[in-house]
């Protein structure tokens, strides 16, 4: 069974962390993954940086620009990750935009992910219908879980469609925004979490965008399986470096 599905079968609430590969330094990738696993997070999204990240706010965009300037490429990332499964067992997802994957070759990219031990992909600008028609068979051939986003504006019909073509979890974008745009959830968000929870979908939901502390983590996971933190983590390592990640993770999980 895919490591993501194993983790989802756990009865605890999951904390997933996103970071941009190649930031703050080009060779930090493996250390960040190892340190995150040791600090007790459940899943990691490795950001493949892109020049024009439409769905991201200023924090992640700046980290992507810096990572590209540091020399990060698709080939470089795969090279850094080639022995990663010798040291960690945590589920690993590559998150990026579709164009770099398209240029690498979708099948070649998926094959490489399988060789390394990547468990899934999140490609926000690969639309569900195109995935379904053109790429689903390739992803499945290489044992990769593809994760789709939904937002408060996504219709019930479309959520059900996305659920039907998903085989891991659904990434619930907490509000109409890019990443890192807000702090705290209001009634509109909690109603939305609740509404989707009541749909009894096949795939569990994990909430992303706007989670930065224990309050927002707890709110987000009351009705869902887990939460993803990106911008707040990037900010943290910008200021505090990539060691001692317990200091970031423990407060979010409500541990001292």
């Amino acid at each position, binding site marked *: 069974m895919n490591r993501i599905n194993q983790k989802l079968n756990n009865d605890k609430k999951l904390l997933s962390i996103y970071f941009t590969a190649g930031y703050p330094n080009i060779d930090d990738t493996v250390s960040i993954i190892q340190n995150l696993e040791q600090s007790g997070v459940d899943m990691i999204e490795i950001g493949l940086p*892109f*020049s*024009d*990240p*439409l*769905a991201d*706010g*200023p924090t992640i*965009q*700046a980290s992507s*620009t810096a990572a*590209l300037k540091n020399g990060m*490429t*698709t*080939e470089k990332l795969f090279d850094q990750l080639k022995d990663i499964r010798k040291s960690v067992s945590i589920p690993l997802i590559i998150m990026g*935009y*579709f*164009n*770099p*994957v*398209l*240029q*690498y070759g979708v099948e070649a990219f998926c094959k490489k992910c399988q060789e390394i031990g990547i468990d899934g992909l999140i490609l*926000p*600008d*690969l*639309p*569900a219908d*195109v995935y379904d028609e053109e790429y689903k068979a390739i992803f499945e051939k290489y044992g990769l879980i593809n994760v*789709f*986003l*939904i*937002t408060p*504006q*996504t*219709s019930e019909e*479309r959520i059900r469609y996305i659920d039907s073509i998903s085989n891991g979890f659904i990434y619930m*974008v907490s509000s*109409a*925004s*890019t990443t890192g*745009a807000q702090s705290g959830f209001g009634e509109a968000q909690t109603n939305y979490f609740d509404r989707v929870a009541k749909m009894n979908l096949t795939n569990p939901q994990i909430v992303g965008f706007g989670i930065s502390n224990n309050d927002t983590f707890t709110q987000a996971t009351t009705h869902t399986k887990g939460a993803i933190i990106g911008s707040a983590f990037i900010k943290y390592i910008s200021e505090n470096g990539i060691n001692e990640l317990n200091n970031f993770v423990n407060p979010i999980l409500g541990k001292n």
Partner: protein
Amino acid sequence: MKNTYNINDKGYYGEFGGAFIPEMLYPNVEELRQNYLKVMAESSFQEEFNQLLKDYVGRPSPLYFAKRLSEKNNTKVYLKREDLNHTGAHKVNNTIGQILMAKRLGKNRIIAETGAGQHGVATATVCALMGMECIVYMGEIDIARQAPNVARMKMLGAEVRPALSGSRTLKDATNEAIRDWIGNPVNTHYIIGSAIGPHPYPDMVTRFQSVISEEIKWQLKEKEGKENPDYVVACIGGGSNAAGTYYHFLDDENVGIIAVEAAGKGIHSGESAATSALGKEGIIHGCKTLLMQTDDGQITEPYSISAGLDYPGVGPLHSHLYKSGRGEFYSATDDEAMQAGLELTKLEGIIPAIESSHALAVFKHKTFQPDDIVVISLSGRGDKDLQNYIDYFKL
């Protein structure tokens, strides 16, 4: 065999187009996709659109027989005078159409991206006309080098927001506008200025601009006794004036379609915007098309002396015309374009926009027959480029 070169019902021109957008944009784009053809077909929409094009924009724009330019090049040259439109370029055809679309979809807030500021001015103009809130995203660097257009937009009541990310030019302004739309999915309409973006934008913009070729047909009939020229010529950045100029001739293979891109300092100089020559198939701003990128799929920064052609991609229609061989593609360097612009000024008393000067540079690349009828889209006037002309020719 009809409609071979036009868009199909899934939003593709051949293999190009589609809507490669994050889910956050899906409802916005889907609302537009489901409604745009229906709205455009409404007679009240048609009436209002045509009335504004006539009384406000000043259409039809003349089809002018350029006698001296024709003699110089030993062929028959007509200029389609989009430069005489209100606001000075073809851009306003599209912004009029889209503001009417926005009103009918119940939107009260308009956003747009702009490079040189021409589309920003055309958008701010129609927002003033309709009393709508208007926010224009513009690269910080472009704001500095296009001060008169920034002033125009502000005078028209628009808020000009600097794009501070990336290279701080047109592509970053587009990213910022898209982010704004993600954050404001319900009340906001995004007026894209070129025949680019996720489906249905390329088709919608092309249809609004297609008035250009619609007029060429009847105007040429009056002047030459036949609707079809031998060639239609236009410059291409994203490609909205070209799309409008070609539209009614796309499936009539007797009419040659010629595109002139900006070669900047030379196609292989590293400072160019000649997308068809340098680009590869990929995804930019929500559409699959030819774009300039690294081997790794990172979008690269183009260069042209003309801010309006300074875009790393081309619209999906044009990628299809290029790939299928239906269109003949050339690229003109900065120098060739500037000389062509000066030549038109001296021969015909018309100072063209530097974008349009690229189309005029076609004569440096192709020799026409004496009895060929060549229609060139003069997409904009050169007032905005005066400083560039002054600096270049040391006037």
